């Protein structure tokens, strides 16, 4: 019972793991490029949770700083990725990544 009432490291890690897996699942299975991006955001969030969790329970500031940089990079990534998606849409008239397979031939 104590395991559930006392919130500890493992709780956060569990949420992070679930978020990561869900993000991974979205990236793997969704055809829509934007949903894939959402998955990527989930993964990044899961990572951030991990950073902050270990930072809190270790007492170091590195995790906090890194999570800040991750957010910055996530913003940059989102901008660039969306620009690319829009270009893909312009070129292929779709954002279905399974149809964007010209390299196969």
């Amino acid at each position, binding site marked *: 019972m104590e395991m559930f009432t006392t919130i500890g490291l493992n709780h956060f890690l569990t949420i992070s793991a*679930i978020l990561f897996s869900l993000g991974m699942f979205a990236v793997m*299975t969704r055809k829509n490029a934007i949903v894939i991006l959402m998955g990527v955001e989930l993964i990044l969030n899961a990572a951030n949770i991990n950073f902050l969790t270990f930072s809190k329970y270790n007492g170091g500031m590195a995790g906090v700083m890194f999570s800040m940089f991750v957010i910055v990079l996530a913003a*940059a990534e989102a901008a660039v990725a969306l620009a690319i998606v829009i270009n893909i849409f312009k070129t292929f008239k779709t954002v279905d990544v399974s149809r964007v397979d010209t390299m196969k031939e």
Partner: protein
Amino acid sequence: MNQLTLAIIFYVFAALTVLSAAFVVFSKNIIYSAFSLLFTFFGVAALYVFLSADFIAVTQVVVYVGGILVLLLFGVMFTNTIMQAELKTDVLHVVPGTLLLILMIAGMLYTFYTTGDWMPGEAQLQGSVVQRIGFETMSHFMLPFEMASIVLLVALLGAAFLARFDKAHKNEH
């Protein structure tokens, strides 16, 4: 606030986060996914607060909800005819994806719960760390901070370049 109240609040936000994330992933409608993502981000921000990172939580809300999510929504609207009855996304690799999903969660949880000795437990962060962030940024993490700013600048320029109108199209006007 006693321990239990905190635990209950944690579980509420944890549930919010996980369930909304699951909805993001499993919903077939992109718009629903996008709005569900909003709740995920809020939930995560709440979890950050539990982790003594209130500044990060605020940043999370500002950047993700105010920036990235809006960006994603614009993306959705640019790439789909909004008047279309259903903005669906098809799936592929459902079976291997689901299997991997379960295996990953199971594997990671197994690892976490069997590895008990990576918590020192002595020097925990307590209270707000905004001041320390400021010190750290200007001292230890000076270079990464500057680099992050450059990366942001370059990314913004690049994104703007990529997403702009066709050059040739423009020249005609």
